[in-house]
């Protein structure tokens, strides 16, 4: 029962889970805000 394995596992799971959380939140935000901005520009009389 090598302690290093347990420590590595705990920190890896944490890093992966939080990494996924941050990335997915960030990507969704960028996508939605870009689309909202685009639609607003279009509505405000910008014929495209």
């Amino acid at each position, binding site marked *: 029962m090598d302690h290093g394995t347990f*420590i590595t596992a705990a920190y890896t799971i944490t890093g992966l889970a939080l990494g996924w959380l*941050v990335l997915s*939140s960030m990507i969704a935000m960028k996508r*939605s805000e870009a689309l*909202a901005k685009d639609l607003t520009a279009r*509505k405000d009389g910008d014929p495209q």
Partner: protein
Amino acid sequence: MHKFANPAQFLRLARPLTPVLFWSGLLLALGACAWGLTMTPAERLQGETVKIIFVHVPSAWLGMGGWVGIAIASIIQLVWRHPLAGISARAIAVPGAVFAALCLATGSIWGRPAWGTWWVWDGRLTSMLILFFMYLGYIALASASSEKGNVSRVAAVFGIVGAINIPIINRSVVWWESQHQKASITLGGSSIDGAYLWPLLVSFLGFGLLYGAIVLMRMRTALADIRIEARMRRLAED
């Protein structure tokens, strides 16, 4: 509160605040973990595995704190009908569930060498597992709500009633004979040596700031989605 009732005003603050929370949180969390892993001593009985504390305890506190946030937002929605209440509750839920899950996973990994088992049905572990399932239930209820802003009344009530689990988790080691040890950090003091306590507190701060950044990102996404829906409807009508 009413200052930010207007989504535009909220966004004017949220946009610059997001990177501030994110980078400061990331720096503190990574720094604290590096500090904890490399510069703290091996523990008397556990050796190096004690260092799992720097991710396990912040996850526990944030998982619990997240639900408190949901409960508060639910009250604000039901009593004052604040337009951002439901959006903030939804934004808190998924990251809160992740932290609760991480608390369970890191705790299990820690328990195997320290206690001799991956799991026991004691009060603390069981109530934390229940909290995780409650998060899943809340997420499902909230996304089933017909509006994109405020959540259904059922979801809001669930958010408030479920908060009873938080003091249960906290008091579980006092009320019941538990495998999980009693509180090491209390209002009276701490039985954690300073060498571990300081990186732990910094880690908690860092992960907390990251949680804040994630919540802001998710709120901004929700507000943008509402704008998109409104525009799409108007464009369809033209």
